[in-house]
Structure formats: structure tokens, C-alpha cells
């Protein structure tokens, strides 16, 4: 592993007048808004979480919940390559290994990308450049951050392809993405992301475009590599199965905000938000006895331009009228601790939720 001084640069960076981070990755009050002709799209609207090295955070949510926007925000990809007048508005703090990224020099953040933090995308066919060979793309990723000649870089690329389980890597390194199968492409994508041993890996729907058996291979690979490199991993997905397999902690997003966050086991076995209940009830499960009917969440996800006032989930929530004074429709609930390292944002009291979960929801799952 080629070690460049990854932390040294932090001293030259302006440190925000703010309390120092407590974790390897700490996101504080992250907001990502996009101005459009129809209005301001509040894709992420105040998000907080922390992540330690070697641990995995699963971010779950439906399309439009802001989970992908969050990952791009951390990578600084909303500001890079923003052309024209309509720029994304980002605020908050992102502390990575002691450095605040949003206030840092963009070029400094650029240098971190691919080296300290890397990303795996959903559809490897479109995420890999169709005109360059797999090898060229990995070599490029390596040489941005390492002053080595092409030969060395190529050796490294072959090594990485071998590591992610691509057969005959010395030959396949010269293949183009379209000559790979879907699973192979995702392996190549992973090889490219990990070529610089990043300390933070963000996997955005890494297996959604893949078949079940290939998905199992890739999940296994990610797990394996994480164990080997000790990186912090954020897995973004809509599939509760994937999160359950990979994550230590789970963050459930709805309408651009976190509505529940906690250790995986807590979120699955003691969920404290009606939306989480809805997600669990919507899912047909292979590991349980056949149920007669699924329990869907009614209605559709909210528009991010007109997020419902109060609790964003209130129009779809079967328990919206449980708290008094119509509070669910007027006041936005903040996250509150409902257990050890477990937070949820709901107006219902702890007791109410506990009762509903135990009496009404859990038996039906």
C-alpha cells in the first residue's frame, strides 16, 4: 500500500470554529438544496450521523428520500462539475478524519476523492467510461494520486482485478466494460474504487442492477474487502435485506431527513418510527412463514419541493392522529433517543410506539 501523508494536509486547512469531530466521519446538519424552475428541491434537509473506521452504515430509503444526494454531498460531487447558474446549495459540516470538507479548498477535497474516499455506483455499465478499457480506467484512478509510471500502475490494476475475483486479470485488464458481464463490471468498479485503499467507501445501490446470485457474490466481496482494508463503509440501498446483511448501523431516510437511526438489530427488532414499520411490512420475506397480505404504506413518497408541514410522513402515517393537537401536521419532530445509540423522529410517545409495535405491527410480520 502506497502511503501518502493523508492527514498531513489537514493542518493547512482552515478549521471551523466548531467542536472537533468525535468520529472518523461525522456529518452535521447537512443540507443539500437544488434551485429549480418549480422551486427549491430540499433533497437533504438537516442530516446528522457518525461512522467509525471498519464499521458499516446502511442508509435506507425510497427513491427521492435523499440517500444518494447525501453520498454525493460527502464526496463533494455536487460542487465539482457544477456548470451554469443553478448550483446546488450545500450547508452543514462534513468532518472526515479531522478535516471539515465543505469549507475546505475544493482542490483539496478533489485530492481526497478517490484516495481517502471512494464510491461504487449502482449501474456499473453506465458508471464506467465505455471508450476506455477497464485497465486504463483503473490505472488512471491510481495515477491521479500516486506518482508512478504506467507499468507499475498497470501491475497494480491487475493485482486489484485479481483481488476482486476477476479471472485472468492480466488479460481482462485490456477489455472494455461492454465486454464484461454485469457482475464482472461491478467487480471492476469495486477494484477501481479500492485501488488507492480509501478509508471511506460509499456504495450507492451496489447490487440493484445485478441478479440475485451475482448480488450475493458482490455483497460477499464488499464485506471481505472491508474486513481486509478496515475501511468505513456507507451502503446506500432500498433493499432491507442488503442492509441487514452488511450494516452495523442503519439510517432510515424519508423526505430528505433521517427518521430513524440506530444499530441494525435495534432498527429491525425495535423500530420506533411508523415509516420503518411500513417498510418492514411492505416486504415479502423468504425467511418467514407465508403471510396472507402485505402491509403497504399508503400513498406515495412526498414531493421534495413541497414537503408536508410537520412530520413529512404524516399524510401516509396511519398513526398521525395519535399525538394530540394535530402536532404531527404542524411541528416537525426532531430525532430523540429511544434507546442506546438509537434515535427516532416521531411525535408519539415512547410508550405509544412500543405498544403499537408490540401489539399491532410485530405479530403481522
Amino acid at each position: 500500500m502506497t502511503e501518502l501523508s493523508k492527514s498531513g494536509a489537514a493542518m493547512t486547512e482552515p478549521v471551523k470554529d466548531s467542536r472537533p469531530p468525535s468520529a472518523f466521519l461525522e456529518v452535521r446538519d447537512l443540507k443539500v438544496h437544488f434551485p429549480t424552475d418549480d422551486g427549491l428541491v430540499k433533497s437533504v434537509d438537516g442530516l446528522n450521523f457518525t461512522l467509525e473506521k471498519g464499521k458499516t452504515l446502511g442508509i435506507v430509503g425510497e427513491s427521492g428520500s435523499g440517500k444518494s444526494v447525501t453520498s454525493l454531498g460527502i464526496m463533494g460531487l455536487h460542487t465539482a462539475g457544477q456548470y451554469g447558474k443553478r448550483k446546488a446549495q450545500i450547508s452543514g459540516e462534513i468532518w472526515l478524519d479531522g478535516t471539515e470538507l465543505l469549507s475546505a479548498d475544493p482542490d483539496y477535497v478533489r485530492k481526497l476523492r478517490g484516495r481517502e474516499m471512494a464510491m461504487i455506483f449502482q449501474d456499473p455499465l453506465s458508471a464506467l467510461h465505455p471508450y476506455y478499457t477497464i485497465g486504463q480506467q483503473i490505472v488512471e484512478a491510481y495515477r491521479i494520486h500516486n506518482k508512478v509510471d504506467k507499468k507499475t500502475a498497470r501491475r497494480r490494476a491487475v493485482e486489484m482485478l485479481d483481488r476482486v475475483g476477476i479471472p485472468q486479470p492480466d488479460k481482462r485488464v485490456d477489455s472494455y466494460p461492454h465486454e464484461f458481464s454485469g457482475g464482472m463490471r461491478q467487480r471492476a468498479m469495486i477494484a477501481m474504487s479500492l485501488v488507492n485503499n480509501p478509508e471511506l467507501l460509499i456504495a450507492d445501490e451496489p447490487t440493484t442492477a445485478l441478479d440475485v446470485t451475482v448480488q450475493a457474490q458482490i455483497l460477499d466481496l464488499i464485506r471481505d474487502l472491508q474486513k481486509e482494508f478496515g475501511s468505513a463503509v456507507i451502503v446506500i440501498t432500498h433493499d432491507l435485506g442488503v442492509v441487514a446483511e452488511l450494516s452495523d448501523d442503519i439510517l432510515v431516510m424519508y423526505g430528505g431527513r433521517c427518521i430513524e437511526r440506530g444499530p441494525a438489530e435495534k432498527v429491525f427488532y425495535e423500530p420506533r418510527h411508523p415509516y420503518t414499520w411500513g417498510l418492514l411490512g411492505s416486504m415479502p420475506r423468504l425467511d418467514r412463514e407465508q403471510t396472507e397480505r402485505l402491509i403497504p404504506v399508503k400513498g406515495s413518497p412526498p414531493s421534495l419541493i413541497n414537503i408536508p408541514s410537520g412530520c413529512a410522513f404524516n399524510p401516509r402515517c396511519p398513526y398521525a392522529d395519535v399525538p394530540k393537537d394535530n402536532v404531527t401536521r404542524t411541528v416537525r419532530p426532531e430525532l430523540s433517543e429511544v434507546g442506546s445509540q438509537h434515535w427516532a423522529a416521531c411525535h408519539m410517545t415512547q410508550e405509544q410506539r412500543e405498544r403499537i409495535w408490540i401489539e399491532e405491527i410485530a405479530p403481522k410480520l
Partner: protein
Amino acid sequence: MARGTAAGPRAVLAYLIRRLFAAAVMLVVIILVVFGIFFLVPRWAGVDPATMFVGKQADPAAIEAVRQKLGLGEPIFVQVWEFFKGLFVGRTYASGGDVTNCAAPCFGYSFRNEQAIWPVLTDRFPVTLALALGAAVLWLIFGVAAGVLSALKRGSLWDRGAMIVALSGVSLPIYFTGLLSLAIFSYGLGWLDAQYVPFAESPTGWFGGMILPWVTLAFLYAAMYARITRATMLEILGEDYIRTARAKGLREPVVIGKHAMRSTMTPILTMFGMDLGALIGGAILTETTFSLPGLGQAVLTAINTKDLPIILGVTLITSLAVIFANLVVDLLYAVIDPRVRLS
């Protein structure tokens, strides 16, 4: 689109042979069509083409002689056959004790100017080629650059201005922009003397004389290319692999210049291949406007004087050039986009 491993030299050769075969078929069709237009259509219209070649005091002997010399008495397929023979082994034009040898490659013989066509073509083709190539280089550079800048500064004053200029470039005919540029830069301000000077005589003079024609011809296309580049670049910038490139930590100029540009080149190249034919038309207009002694000028004079052999020769040589250039474009296409296989 067939897929497979990278095409080997044999595949390229087979592809080339196939393409050349297709090109030959194409040329034969072109020759037949031109023959048809200039020999058959007047006959249907009840006009004897031979009378178009004699002077004011039309002597029947002269008309007959011309008919014989041009081979107009022969059936059309014999005429075509003679023409093809001439291409490869040369041919002899004989009439009234006057014998003219036209050595291979014999593209025909102009009775208006009493010249074999081939030397006319070799004399004039370089001018047209220089005009077309120079203009192509100019429009590719400036059109693509303007398009990229517009895409990157979308919605800015520059973008709007460039697109308005591009729109006017697309809409204005060459003879208008040509005359306008002549009027302003040559006659009016006297900055550029738009007068053709052979390269061998004075390279700088040649260059100076070509600037206005180049710019005029390039303007039309640069405008189109700026528009297509802008649109394509905007589309490409939204592609996932551009995001990937940024996620790797690449500098923005590399993201744009390498990753986005290569993809942007694909439709531009496609368009370029299609424009080559139209380029000849543009070159003819430009040559006319600027009195450049190229193929366009020759063919225009030939059309006015019904000098079929010149028209046929120019049509052939330009068709050859277009077909050849398209072949190059297709090969380049395969180089740029590995998904395109030569089949």
C-alpha cells in the same frame, strides 16, 4: 451491433475490402446517374446534346463530327463501357483525322477546352482539398470549442451570444456571408486580400488568400458543430461515468477534456462523415464567391457550358474523396468507440 474481442488486422482488412467493394458499386451507380442526366435527359426533352457543343454557325458536318467524337451515337451502355475502359487503360478520341490520346486514368476529354480531364482534376483538386480541409480544421476547432464553452457556461451571456451567432451561421447562405466578408474585410477595410495565389508562388500569399474562404466555409459548419457539441456535451456531462471520473479525483479539465470530450466526439464524427458530401457543395459555392480555381469553379463553368466530361470527372473525383473520407471517418469511429466493431 456485434460484440466480441478487439478486431484484428484481418478483420480490418476484410472490412476495408468490403467497404472498397461497396464504394466501387457506388461509383458505378454515380457514373450511370450522371450519364443519364447529361445524355439521356436532353434526348428525352428533344434536344440533341451535340448541338450544344458546336458554335453559332451550326454546320451539320460539325454536329455529326461532335456526335461521333463524343460517342453520342453509341448506345448508352457502350458509352459507359468506353468510359470505364478509359479509366483503366486509357482511350483514344479520333475524328476527322484528329487523334487525341487520353492516357489512363482517362476521366474523359473536354471538347470545350480540348483537354483531358485528369490534368484538370489534378490541377484543381488540391485547391478544393485545401479549402475543404482548412475549413474543416477551423470549424472543428472553433465549433467544438465554442460548443464546449457554451455547455460549461450554460445560460451565461457567452452561451446565449454564441448560440445566436451559431443560429445565424446555420441560417445564412455561404454566398451571403462570403460576399459580406469580402465587402468588409477585403474591399472595405482592406485587411485581407482574398485573392488566390498558388502555394508554390507564395505560401504566405496563398495563406492570406485562403483565410476568408476558409472562415466563410467554416462559419456555416462551425455554427452547426457548436450547437451539436453543446447539446452533446450537456448530455454527456450528465452521464454516470463523468460522475465516476470526478469521484476518482480527476481535475475538472481532465474530466472535460478527456472523458467528456471523447464521448462528445462520437456524434460529431458521425455528423462530420455525413457533412463531407455537403462540404463539396459548400466548397463549390465558396470557390465561386471567392473565384478560387478549384473543382467547384471548374464544375460550375462546365455546367454553364454543358461540358459533360468535366462534370463527370469532378463528380467522380469528389465522390471518391467523399467515400474515402467516410472510410477514414468510420475507421476513426471504431478507434474512438471500441463498441463499434468493423462489420
